[in-house]
């Protein structure tokens, strides 16, 4: 077994270990986004989920730059993830410098953040597309077929993580769990905003503080976020785990 194969196996074991009963969906997707970048040899990864309005929402991103590019994509309703979501097929652009005609605003934002190529993979659940995974690279070129297959397997792992179950999930279960994931994201955004005032930090630092505190205390990110906005956590407790 090559070093890469071993690492792929480790990552899938790590991800399935996360899928215990009471797991934290945002923590899981966050970890998945980070592992995607590492295993697929890309620079960044973003994960988007559709809500009941048919609108994609960003639920996880491996880097802050990727998060901003994803938000540009969502705000302007154009980009590879939206195409992958609406068609249900992978979308690839090996050199974004040639993509200005296709997605003018997305391309400008992506190149501005230093990304030169992009790949978007649909998150499928049977006949339904529930979201999309976006992969960004700082170099041009296509991902090879093996890498795309592995990427699709990771995208499928994300879908399974969200709906908890494989093929058997009923419509009600899928709806309940998609809504839980989307709502967790909203809660975390509220907690980030809360901390920008209470700790006088910016939103990205706020997310780092939330995550550090959750990990240091073995608690779910969403539970920590809820405690923050309900005023159940003292700012000094949070500050004590602030890195740097």
């Amino acid at each position: 077994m090559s070093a890469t194969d071993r690492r792929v196996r480790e990552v899938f074991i790590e991800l399935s270990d996360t899928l215990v009963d009471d797991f934290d969906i945002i923590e899981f997707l966050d970890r998945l986004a980070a592992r995607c970048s590492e295993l697929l040899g890309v620079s960044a990864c973003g994960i988007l989920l559709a809500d009941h309005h048919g609108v994609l929402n960003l639920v996880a991103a491996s880097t802050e730059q990727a998060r901003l590019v994803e938000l540009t994509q969502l705000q302007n309703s154009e980009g590879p993830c939206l195409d992958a979501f609406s068609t249900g097929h992978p979308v690839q652009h090996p050199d974004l410098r040639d993509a200005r005609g296709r997605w003018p605003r997305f391309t400008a934002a992506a190149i501005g953040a230093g990304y030169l190529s992009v790949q978007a993979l649909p998150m499928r659940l049977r006949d339904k597309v529930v979201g999309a995974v976006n992969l960004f690279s700082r170099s041009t070129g296509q991902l090879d077929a093996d890498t795309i297959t592995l990427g699709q397997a990771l995208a499928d792992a994300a879908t399974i993580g969200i709906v908890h179950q494989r093929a058997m999930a009923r419509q009600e279960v899928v709806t309940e769990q998609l809504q839980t994931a989307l709502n967790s994201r909203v809660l975390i955004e509220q907690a980030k905003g809360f901390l920008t005032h209470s700790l006088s930090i910016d939103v990205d630092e706020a997310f780092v503080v939330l995550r550090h505190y959750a990990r240091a205390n073995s608690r779910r990110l969403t539970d920590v976020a809820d405690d923050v906005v309900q005023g159940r956590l003292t700012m000094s407790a949070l500050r004590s785990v602030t890195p740097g």
Partner: protein
Amino acid sequence: MDHERSARVWGAIRAVANGDDSSLSLLHAVTACAQVLSAAGAGLALTSSGGMLEPLLATDAEIGELDELQSSLGEGPSGDAISAGAPVLETDLAGLNAGRRWPSFSAAVAGRGMHGAFAFPVAAGAAKVGVLSVYRRQAGPLRAEQLQDALVFADAVFVLALDQRHGVSADLDEMIEAAFTARRAEVHQAAGRLAAQEGVSVADALALLRAHAYSSGQPLHRVAADVMSGSLKLESGSSPPGGPTDPKELDPDHAENEQEED
């Protein structure tokens, strides 16, 4: 994005309001929801400051009693929906699953001829306003389309409930535009920041943001961006007397007689 569904849902609420010859209310939204989902009826319970659900209104007395039962027994789909932050969809109240999950509630409703109970949080993250409950006589799941419609109805009830706190009454286009579909991350961050600044709940902070957007004629996401950059300071002092978390303040004209109507 699926503007069509939002437009259809708000159109149905408008149609009910027109029949009533009045401006959009929570009861109109709940009534339209029951109609569109071909349900026996629907109700709305609000979260009190203590975290309990208090039934506010229902399409008729029978539905009101079901919501009251859930509230007094302290168990049922609605309570689970608000604590999970996700819908709870019970397709057969007489089934084993419902009996195990809510033994008192399912025993209490047995023989009432009501089998489907679907609860949708009227909420966004920590901003938990209440629960929209939908009851059907027949067992079985809602169709995928109905399920999506119900989620949009819950969003509609959410913005109507928030806006009533400040006496805001927007027109339909503004409602559809502002219904939390765009740039939500920023809006929710701003609500969190404002909650910390003013020492109010996240729901109250969201209501403040929306009220300011209407009164200033600015889009919600711009108000949110200004709050985040610190260039706009909003104060909670402008909220109506009695406290916006008091359910009775939400709908003073309707709270009394609602359950007898229809």
